[in-house]
């Protein structure tokens, strides 16, 4: 070992001395041999000549010794790398296109799959996440609901105590709380959890302890809180002494009992939990509603999870839970809650079923699943394209390589050495491509996350921009195989044939067999890029359609934020006075022209829906479910919605006679024909089935968007917030005189001075919010447009390469044609015909593919048919034009061949 290291050291640093020593050693050998011959009686000269002859070629011996030296392999490798870099640098266009192709294929796929993997495929960081299921009830709960995946608290208890399929169940309810610590007030996200939450998830404590089943026995009895590790780290700077101290949540003193283990942010990745509170503290954490103590069965509010028993499949568990659910439903339908519903409603209710969903699925992953899969499929197509392009590049270069290799073989290079050298070259190319692709992927994931999540959420959200190594490896292997198959193999096949003809064939004919293959590859490229371009066209037009929709009111100069003073323990009267003072205060702010308050946020996918009864149609309340909101006076004028008939709310609309402003759809759907003003309707109350239509319509507004831009304007009814049951969460809208962005900082400051204990959230302009609500569409549209453009570029480069190669190959033929009198136009026409055959075949294949696959993206489109002919025609035309240009350049070159030079070249 040591002797080898010394030899290597000598080799690297004292090469000259090694060579000098060797020379001296060899000449000593020759002299000694000749001295021996002199001793046996030869003349000096003759002896020396004989000795030289006997020894053989000194140079060969020298080479023989050098070949076995330690370090020589290394040097050969360095030589190969140098030679490889030189070869690549000699064809900069080839190298750049190849490296760019590799980088694109690797980068796009790695970035997209990493996102898909983390957003859609990832599992919760808990013990055996695949055994965790979400327990939901498919069907209508007939009552109030926080969402389709919620069930009521008593239902949770019944399922928990009656099931035979889970080792444990827990329920969770996510809510915002106001955290007071020192003199800071901030809004934080808390998960209210049942006592089984931590044990069933298998999550331990990093400090102190977690919430245990004992904390979950008696309502209001356990004012304790567990912090998430990242929140503890960021907000409390990882201070260990916080455990055992109290913090104020909604002005209620809570003892910090521990910190959850690192990396765990609750069971809803889209709303990372910053703290965990026993669900028995619901009343304190959500002062506006209860649901726990009143045990209403018609209020679905908890998300419920179960851990499957070993050996139990989700399918088995789901079917064996149905009888249990059915018995619960049979009992519920007998309760007084149901008295007001029709027999049909009861039958419908009894058909509800338990549905078990994967525990790691969440709102974000469900929403992003399809768009991300589509984008991943698009990048897959880009990878195929990249392979085809690389293959084409390699094939086009093969004839030149063949001659070079034949020449090198002829002057005595070993075949193994040539293979190694080609391998090194391919690896260099792939290495550069992979490095660039990886950098691209890193940048792309960061960029995509920023595009998709607001800046402050990127830090919180658990998507890391580290590319997925499996996809990286897969893409790299695929491209490496392609370049080996299409670069190395033809070159070697060439090297095995007779050396002489290869060198003699000076006309660069090369292996003519590769031409049909090249054409096929161009056809594939054209087809794939048409597919990508059509997809891009559909997505871009969808985005434009959605942007063009508009909400039905002017969105410029409109800024919004939200707050909830009731979380600070403010009583209903205090909250009412808070909002009244706030209204006055903000109206006095310079730059603000009007102020409007609303209990429901606009265009944020939230909806408050409730069944109503009409004056005459008391029997069938179920179908009538308009969306509702409580607003203050000045709301409609602030948003810019005109009052078409009747009047707006005023300060005086506080009395016992309830009033409402409705939109036109509401009037058309639920009110009898004629003047809607003065008509009455009522809200269904499951506590009081005798409720009367006691709300009077005082005004009518036009239809405007409510939940999001895609959904057509639903029937809407607005109430005066003075007449609501309680004051709590409010969205504040300000119409400004100038650019609303410039108001934001002053607004923050003004609100701090107004009441430093009430944090404001979600301050942004309406335009930003609308842009934000279209982020999925924007993501898909911009990425597919980028991929489509790149695909077209690749296809065009491929076509150009094949045409240029054809022209070089047929220079002689062109020379003869021109000599025989063919015109330039004829030659160009001939070449263009050849190009257009490839393009047309490619376009037809692509069009068939596009039409066949279009249905897969139907749900992602808006306002146009997936088989939209204009998009397909537009994509085909732009591809045809670009391809035509790419084909024309070599064709023009072919037509300007000088016949004498072309013929002399042979």
């Amino acid at each position, binding site marked *: 070992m040591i002797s*080898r290291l010394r030899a290597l050291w000598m080799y690297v640093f004292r090469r000259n001395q090694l060579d000098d020593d*060797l020379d001296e050693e060899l000449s000593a050998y020759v*002299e000694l041999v000749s*001295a021996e011959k002199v001793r046996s009686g030869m003349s000096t000269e003759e002896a020396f000549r004989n000795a030289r002859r006997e020894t053989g070629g000194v140079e060969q*011996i020298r080479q023989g010794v050098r070949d076995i030296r330690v370090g020589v392999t290394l040097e050969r490798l360095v030589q190969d790398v140098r030679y490889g870099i030189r070869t690549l640098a000699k064809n900069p266009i080839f190298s750049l296109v190849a490296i760019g192709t590799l980088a694109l294929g690797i980068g796009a796929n790695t970035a997209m799959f990493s996102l898909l993997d983390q957003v859609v495929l990832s599992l919760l960081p808990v013990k055996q996440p695949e055994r965790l299921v979400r327990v939901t009830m498919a069907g209508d709960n007939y009552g109030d609901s926080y969402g389709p995946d919620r069930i009521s608290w008593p239902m949770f208890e019944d399922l928990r105590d009656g099931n035979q399929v889970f080792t444990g169940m827990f329920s969770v309810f996510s809510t915002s709380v106001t955290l007071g610590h020192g003199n800071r007030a901030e809004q934080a996200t808390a998960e209210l959890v049942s006592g089984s939450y931590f044990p069933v998830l298998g999550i331990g404590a990093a400090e102190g302890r977690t919430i245990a089943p004992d904390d979950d026995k008696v309502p209001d009895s356990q004012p304790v809180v567990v912090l998430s590790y990242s929140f503890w780290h960021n907000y409390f700077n990882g201070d260990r002494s916080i455990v055992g101290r109290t913090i104020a949540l909604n002005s209620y003193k809570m003892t910090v009992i521990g910190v959850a283990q690192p990396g765990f942010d609750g069971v809803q990745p889209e709303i990372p939990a910053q703290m965990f509170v026993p669900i028995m503290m619901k009343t304190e954490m959500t002062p506006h509603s209860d649901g726990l103590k009143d045990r209403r069965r018609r209020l679905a509010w908890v998300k419920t999870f179960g851990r499957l028993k070993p050996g139990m499949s989700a399918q088995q568990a789901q079917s064996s839970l149905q009888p249990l659910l059915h018995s619960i439903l049979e009992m519920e339908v007998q309760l007084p809650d149901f008295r007001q519903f029709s027999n049909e409603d009861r039958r419908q209710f009894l058909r509800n079923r338990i549905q078990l969903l994967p525990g790691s699925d969440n709102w974000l992953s469900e929403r992003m699943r399809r768009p991300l899969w589509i984008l991943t499929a698009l990048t897959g197509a880009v990878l195929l394209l990249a392979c085809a392009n690389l293959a084409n590049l390699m094939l086009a270069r093969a004839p030149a390589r063949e001659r070079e290799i034949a020449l090198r073989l002829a002057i005595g290079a070993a075949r193994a050495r040539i293979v190694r050298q080609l391998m090194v070259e391919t690896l260099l190319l792939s290495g550069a491509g992979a490095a660039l692709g990886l950098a691209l992927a890193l940048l792309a994931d960061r960029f995509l996350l920023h595009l998709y999540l607001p800046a402050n959420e990127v830090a919180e959200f658990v998507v890391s921009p580290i590319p997925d190594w499996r996809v990286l490896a897969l893409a790299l292997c695929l491209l490496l195989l392609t370049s080996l198959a299409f670069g190395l193999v033809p070159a070697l096949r060439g090297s095995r044939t007779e050396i002489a003809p290869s060198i003699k064939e000076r006309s660069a004919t090369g292996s003519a067999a590769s031409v049909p293959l090249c054409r096929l590859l161009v056809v594939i490229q054209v087809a794939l890029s048409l597919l990508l371009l059509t997809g891009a066209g559909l997505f871009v037009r969808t985005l434009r359609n959605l942007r063009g929709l508009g909400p039905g009111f002017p969105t410029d100069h409109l800024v919004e934020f939200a707050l909830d003073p009731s979380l600070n323990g403010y009583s209903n009267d205090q909250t009412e006075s808070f909002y009244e003072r706030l209204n006055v205060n903000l109206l006095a702010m310079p730059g603000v022209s009007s102020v409007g308050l609303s209990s429901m946020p606009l265009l944020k996918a939230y909806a408050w829906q409730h069944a109503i009864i009409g004056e005459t149609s008391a029997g069938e309340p179920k179908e009538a479910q308009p969306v509702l909101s409580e607003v203050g006076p000045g709301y409609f004028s602030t948003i810019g919605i005109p009052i078409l008939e009747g009047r707006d709310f005023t300060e005086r609309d506080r009395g016992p006679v309830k009033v409402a402003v409705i939109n036109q759809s509401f009037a058309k759907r639920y009110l009898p024909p004629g003047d809607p003003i003065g008509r009455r309707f009522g809200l269904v109350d499951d506590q009081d089935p005798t409720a009367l239509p006691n709300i009077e319509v005082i005004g009518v507004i036009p239809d405007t968007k409510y939940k999001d831009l895609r959904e057509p304007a639903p029937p809407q009814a607005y109430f005066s917030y003075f007449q609501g049951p309680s004051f709590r969460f409010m969205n504040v809208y300000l119409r400004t005189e100038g650019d609303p962005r410039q108001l934001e900082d002053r607004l923050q400051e003004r609100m701090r001075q107004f009441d430093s204990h009430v944090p404001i959230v979600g301050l942004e302009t309406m335009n930003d919010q609308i842009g934000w609500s279209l982020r999925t569409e924007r993501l898909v549209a911009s990425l597919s447009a980028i991929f489509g453009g790149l695909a077209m570029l690749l296809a065009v480069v491929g076509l150009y390469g094949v045409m240029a190669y054809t022209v070089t190959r047929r220079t002689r033929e062109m020379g003869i044609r021109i000599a025989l009198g063919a015109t330039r136009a004829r030659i160009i026409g001939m070449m263009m015909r050849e190009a257009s055959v490839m393009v047309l075949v490619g376009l037809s294949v692509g069009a068939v593919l596009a039409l066949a696959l279009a249905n897969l993206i139907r749900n992602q489109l808006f306002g146009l048919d997936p088989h939209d002919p204009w998009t397909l025609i537009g994509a085909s035309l732009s591809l045809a034009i670009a391809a035509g240009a790419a084909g024309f350049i070599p064709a023009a070159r072919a037509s300007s061949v000088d016949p004498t030079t072309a013929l002399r070249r042979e």
Partner: protein
Amino acid sequence: MAGSESDLLQGTLDVLILKALALQELHGMGISRRIGQMTNGAFDVKAGSLFPALHRMEQAGWLTSSWGQAETNRRAKFYSLTKTGRKHLQTETERWERISLAMGAALGLRQEAR
């Protein structure tokens, strides 16, 4: 067996060189002559094989070299066995013993005294 070095079995040359150096240090030509002597002229190792082998064995740590005075007062490179070289000669000798016995038995040759 013909005396041409191209017929030398793989590894044979190494053993012969080790054996040649077992008694004393020698320079290149000395080793070549000693091998000729040892094998009754059956092996005539040419410089083209000898020197690469010597350098390879030196790198492997079996041999060590130093410059010294040859018979004619010519400066020459002398090779000698290292400890590992000696050990290697030992194991190679045993191996060859087994091989030659086995080959002799297989081919029905009369056992000769070595």
